[in-house]
């Protein structure tokens, strides 16, 4: 049996999607890796002073510079002539990746470092108290985009970072979900085997932040994919090469299971908002040819 490289005893909530993502990433990568983690939920729960859940070399950077630190680690290995000994992987949340670290990430992709950058996407700043990020989807209520009398929650669409990464013309960009673990493992294996910069975004539901029972983390992740709200695909040099097709379900099935979208079903005018979210899913289906 494969050794568990992400040890138990970490402080993730019962049902933590990010912890599942970390386990799956390490199952795909094996032990010959150096992991860089920026600040975020995964960093906080996996490295409570003076402990560490990681059984591979791991370094914590600042919130904004995981991609820069990973670039430095890769260049250091190269100049020491030890590049064959380990692959460099950065694992950051959506806040660190899509908001705060996007400059450093773009630089890393543009300079062509041989690093796999993985974003576990739980769609808000979870460990600081569920503040919205640019990856928070349209209509979600967070503590900084609260739904109420004058608001239906987050009023901007989810930023499409895989498309931004692909626009750098890098050799591999992929999305995945923890609900499809073999797909995650396969994509991590593939990414680290390719020379050059790679970007992988893994959808990782958060029971605490999204408001659902911890036993349903995988079910919610599956619904995000089945409704077309989180399309799963791979792209090479900016061209989409594979898509996970689904028998699409209405977005309500995904939304009604979560507290962050509860207001859409209870407030006057919510129906119009649900229609807008269904339009987002329909547009994804059209763009990627998701429908079976």
């Amino acid at each position, binding site marked *: 049996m494969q050794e568990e490289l992400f040890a*138990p005893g970490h402080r993730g*909530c019962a049902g933590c999607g990010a912890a599942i993502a970390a386990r799956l990433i390490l199952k795909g990568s094996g032990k010959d890796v150096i992991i860089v983690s920026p600040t975020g939920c995964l960093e906080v729960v996996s490295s409570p002073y*003076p*402990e560490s859940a990681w*059984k591979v070399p791991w370094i914590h950077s600042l919130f904004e510079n995981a991609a820069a630190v990973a670039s430095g680690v890769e260049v250091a290995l190269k100049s020491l002539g030890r590049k064959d000994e380990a692959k460099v992987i950065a694992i950051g949340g959506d806040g660190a990746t899509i908001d705060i670290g996007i400059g450093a990430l773009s630089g890393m992709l543009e300079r062509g470092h041989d690093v796999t950058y993985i974003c576990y996407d739980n769609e808000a700043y979870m460990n600081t108290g569920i503040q919205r990020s640019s990856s928070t989807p349209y209509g979600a209520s967070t503590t900084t985009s609260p739904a109420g009398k004058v608001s239906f929650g987050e009023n901007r669409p989810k930023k499409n970072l895989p498309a931004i990464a692909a626009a750098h013309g890098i050799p591999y960009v992929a999305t995945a979900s923890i609900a499809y673990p073999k797909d995650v493992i396969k994509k991590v294996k593939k990414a680290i085997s390719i020379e050059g910069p790679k970007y992988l975004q893994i959808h990782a539901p958060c*029971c605490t932040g999204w408001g659902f029972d*911890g*036993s349903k*983390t995988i079910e919610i992740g599956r619904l995000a994919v089945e409704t077309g709200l989180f399309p799963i695909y791979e792209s090479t040099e900016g061209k989409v090469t594979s898509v996970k097709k689904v028998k699409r379900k209405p977005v309500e099935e995904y939304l009604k299971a979560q507290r962050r979208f509860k207001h859409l079903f209870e407030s006057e005018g919510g129906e119009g908002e649900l229609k807008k979210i269904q339009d987002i899913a329909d547009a994804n289906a059209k763009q990627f040819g998701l429908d079976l």
Partner: protein
Amino acid sequence: MKLSIGAMAEPGSTRTNKTGSWRTFKPIINVEACIGCGTCSMFCPEGTICKVADKYAIDYDYCKGCGICAHECPVKAIEMVLEGE
């Protein structure tokens, strides 16, 4: 634990923190019904479900009782039981 400059920690040392005490509901695997597919082990956020022979067993020292294993088991061979019952 003694830490050196740069705050290095022992690999996997969160094991000193037994999160089994967090649990409210305890997953019990019915080994008769278990088909050994490994779905529970794959999805466990703690990595506490291990293959023993051709079946699976749970390390209750760390299981937080989230219930993903019971929810995802394709043959419903895992039951969540209130702790202490």
